[in-house]
Every structure is written in C-alpha cells, then in structure tokens.
C-alpha cells in the first residue's frame, strides 16, 4: 500500500493524520502499533520494531481504535485487570478524567452508550502515560460537550515525552489541538507540516467576494462568501481551517510540502516508516 514512504515523528507533538477513505490511515496506525507487518522496508517506533511486539514496546503504546469491544465487566474490574500491565499507569489521573467525563467506575462497560465507552477508553489511554498514544477517530460518537472536554483533557494531560497520533475525518474536532498535520493519499504522504509553519506561510480567512487580483491559493464557497487560503504576507497569523487546508491539498492546490527537508524519500532498504 505504501510507496516511497518516510515519516519521522518526534515526541511532544499531537499529530493529525488526515486522508480520504482508503488512503491508508488505519493501515499506517496498525503498522505503528505492530498489528501488521510491513511487506518491505523497515520501521522503528520508540527504538523497537513494532511487529516484534516486544512487551516493553507494547507497554509504551496505547491504541484507541475506532471500533472497540469490551468484556462484560465493570469499569473498576477492567481497570483492575488491565492497568497493572502498564507500568506508568496513573490511577489519580484516571480518577480526575473520570470526574471530568462523569464516568462511574461501578458501571458495567457493556451497558454504557457508545459515547460513554469511548470516553472511558480515552480516559484509560491517557492514564497509561504511554509514550505513543494512537487515536483512530476519537471524537466519533462523542457529544458536543464531550468533544470539547476531550480536547481540553488531551492537551492538559499529554507531556513532552509523549507522541499523540490522531487519525480522523472530523477535522474540526481537532484543529485547535494538533501541532502537526500529516496528509496521506494512496499510501503516500502528500503533505506534512507543523501548524506553526502553516500559519506562518498560509493565511486563512472568509472573504465576501473574490477578485482576479486576489492571490488565492484555494477557495470554497460558503454561506457568507468564500473561505480562502492565501499566502501569508503580513505578520498577522490566522487560525488554521483544517478542513479547507485538507481540501486544498487533496485538490492539488497546495501541492508540495512546505518544508521539503522533512519529507525525505528513501530508497531500497531504507524505505518504510519511522516514528521516533
């Protein structure tokens, strides 16, 4: 699925992994977690080859999948059974996230709604304090207040030693918390950039009209005029409109990576994915 694929992610970042359906996002997450084996090339996460599934590697990575299944036990029992397997698990952190999400430890997991179960899984994942946290569509099924809580809790609980990878189609749910955007399409990274670099080089705004003189990289019609991306020419920075940026990238309006030194195509044995 992946060709000439090279990706290096550093800890201390919250990475938004974006792509169309079938672009390879879930496959990439599975490769990172060691659930699949690369057919070619090499891959390293935290100094481990993921597919070897070294227990020390598994103790430092937690994946919140889009679909999940729980045994028919109470939350307290689940935590009692699984938390000791994660050496850095923080029970106090779990309690405080439970309080924020209004989760009752005595509840049976299979009697909770999908959204509540997802909140539990997010709380558990964050409490493991694993160095790599992988979220596949974390906000699917969450109500509006919970999405906001998720952003708040994630930002406050992630440390500089942790790397968070969020794969999602709900870009608006995460556009304020990510600090790196990676877009993949047909198994190739077509864009990767830190958000601070994006805001330095691109300007996002809503314009009522567009003229031929306007330097517009990409625009989309909206009820009040146009959502546009322009080259940043002034010191003023704008908030990233992640959905617009994604559409611009997918439509080849922003074609090349903004910082080509990050994307280094490798050949032969070096071909693969590396997250550090």
């Amino acid at each position: 699925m992946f060709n000439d694929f090279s990706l290096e992610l550093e800890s201390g970042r919250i990475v938004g992994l974006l792509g169309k359906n079938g672009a390879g996002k879930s496959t990439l997450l599975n490769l990172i977690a060691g659930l699949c084996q690369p057919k070619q090339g090499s891959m390293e996460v935290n100094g481990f080859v993921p597919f070897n599934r070294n227990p020390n590697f598994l103790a430092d990575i937690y994946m919140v999948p889009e679909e999940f299944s729980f045994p028919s036990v109470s939350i307290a029992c689940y935590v009692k059974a699984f938390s000791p397997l994660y050496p850095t698990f923080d029970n106090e952190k779990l309690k405080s996230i439970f309080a924020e999400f209004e989760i009752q430890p005595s509840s049976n997991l299979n009697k909770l709604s999908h959204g509540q179960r997802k909140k539990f899984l997010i709380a558990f994942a964050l409490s493991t304090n694993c160095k790599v946290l992988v979220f596949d569509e974390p906000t699917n099924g969450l109500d509006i207040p919970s999405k906001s809580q998720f952003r708040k809790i994630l930002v406050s609980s992630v440390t500089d030693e942790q790397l968070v990878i969020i794969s999602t189609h709900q870009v608006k749910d995460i556009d304020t918390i990510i600090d790196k955007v990676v877009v993949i399409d047909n198994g190739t990274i077509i864009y990767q950039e830190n958000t601070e670099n994006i805001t330095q080089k691109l300007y996002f705004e809503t314009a009522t009209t567009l003229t031929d003189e306007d330097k517009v990289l990409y625009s989309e019609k909206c009820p009040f005029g146009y959502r546009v991306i322009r080259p940043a020419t002034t010191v003023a920075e704008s908030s990233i409109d992640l959905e617009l940026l994604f559409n611009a990238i997918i439509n080849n309006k922003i074609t090349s990576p903004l910082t080509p030194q990050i994307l280094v195509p490798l050949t032969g044995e070096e071909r693969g994915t590396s997250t550090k």
Partner: protein
Amino acid sequence: MNSNKFFSFSRFNLLLRNDILLNYKKYLLTIAGAFILGFIVIYSNMPKYIQKDELHWVFGSQKYFQVFIMCLIGLEAFVGSSFSELSNKVKTSNYLLLPASTFEKYLSKFVIHVIAAIILFLIIFWIDAHLARYVTINNIKDTNDSVLSYAEKEKFVQVFNYSMLLIRNTYPTITYWSWFEGLAIVFGIFSVGMYFFNVKLFFRKLGLIKTAISLIAVIYLGVITMTILSQLFYPETKWFDISKNMDYRMENGLFNIEYWMYLSAYLVSLFLIPLGYFKLKEKEL
C-alpha cells in the same frame, strides 16, 4: 540476549490475573456445567436394574474408561475455547496489543485452558464418578425381587479410582497398558487437545468444525498412507482391506498400524505446540 522480552514472571502473573478477572464468571459456569454434565454422562451409563446375569451388569474399569473418554470430549471443547479473543478483528487487536510477550500470552492460555482444565477435569470426574455410584446404588432396582443389602448392591458398581484406567483388559485375565501404549494414549489425547487449543489461531470462524474436518482428514491421510504401504509391501491387499495384515506383529508385540498411530500421537503434540506459538507470533490484523 534480554530474556525479559520473552518471559517475565511478574508480567506473566499479571496476564493470568487479567484473564481470571475478566473471565472468572465464565470459568465458574463452565466448572458447574462440567460437574452437572459429567454426572449425567456417568450416571446414565451406570446400571439401573439388577438382572439374573449379575456379571453382565458390573460397572468396572472398562465402563469407566468408556465414560472417561466420553467426558474428555467436553474437556476438548473447553480447550477449543482458548484464544476466544481472536474471534474478530477488534478483539484480536486488543489482545495483540496487551503488554506481554507472545510466549507469555501462549503460556497463559495453556496454563488456564490445558493444565488447570485437566486438573479440574480429573477432580470433577472423580467426584462425579463417586456421586453417580452413590446415587446408582441407592436407586438400583432388583428385578429378581431378591432383597439385597447395600454391601451386596455395591458390588454392581466398582468404586472409581484412576488406576482403573491403566487396565487394558479384564477378560480372561487383567492386563495393563504397556508404558509405551499408555503414554501414547495420553499423548494422543493431548495431541487432539492441542489441535483444539490452536483452533482460533488458524480459523477465525467455525473453528471447531473446521478443526474436526481437518482432524478427520489427518486420520484418513493416515489410513491412506497405511493402505499405500500395505499395497506396496503386501500385494495380496485389495483396496482398503488392510485388516488382514493385522497378523503381522512387530518385535515389540504391536501391530504395525498401532505402532504407527502411537508414534504419531507422540510426535503430533510436539509439532502443534511450537506451530501454535509461531502462528500467534505472526498473527496480523
């Protein structure tokens, strides 16, 4: 080499604890179910009437051996429920991501679904056999209307003990399984158990049925191999009629087919354990 990545005693304990915490209700229900079913199987095979030919109704070692084998099918079904976490993609993902080595995961299932299951099975069977005998003797009906004492009735059903299973034949004299045969039977049962133990590692859906079909295929393969060998070395053999060659005994007193089956029983389990381990190790989503 860092052995911690293969096995850590504390991590293994946590994995066992994890399994028991999550599944203890299922295990308790299984034990209760095995106890009831075991009793039903043993009791239903015990005599209900005393007739003229008393010897015919004595429930002894060979009958116990038969019901023991019948109950073993239940044990094999439980063994076949190992690795239920691999029944769908979501559960598989959760299981593979558990922070433990493949060896620890495989061993923890083996300890619970094979070692602990065998120990509990032997205890449950022993209790069931004694209980079934007690109930049988208290309810046995004498069709001859001769008033028999409890002590006399006791003779119709022998008291069960595991040494009975070592008896190969009681007529005309008591003979025991040789160590080679006895071990082969144990290994044979163990091999079938390992076959079922690995079911979920090879098949995601209808694993037990597919395994049963595979097992039958393996047995037929054995028969065909023997047939081919018979055809090659004994030209008088017609088609699958290999029974006439049963006259040929080997130096150790076994028929060639027995020897071949026993050797298979010894070797198959040794092959299936590492095969299952590597299958789990290379499991992909």
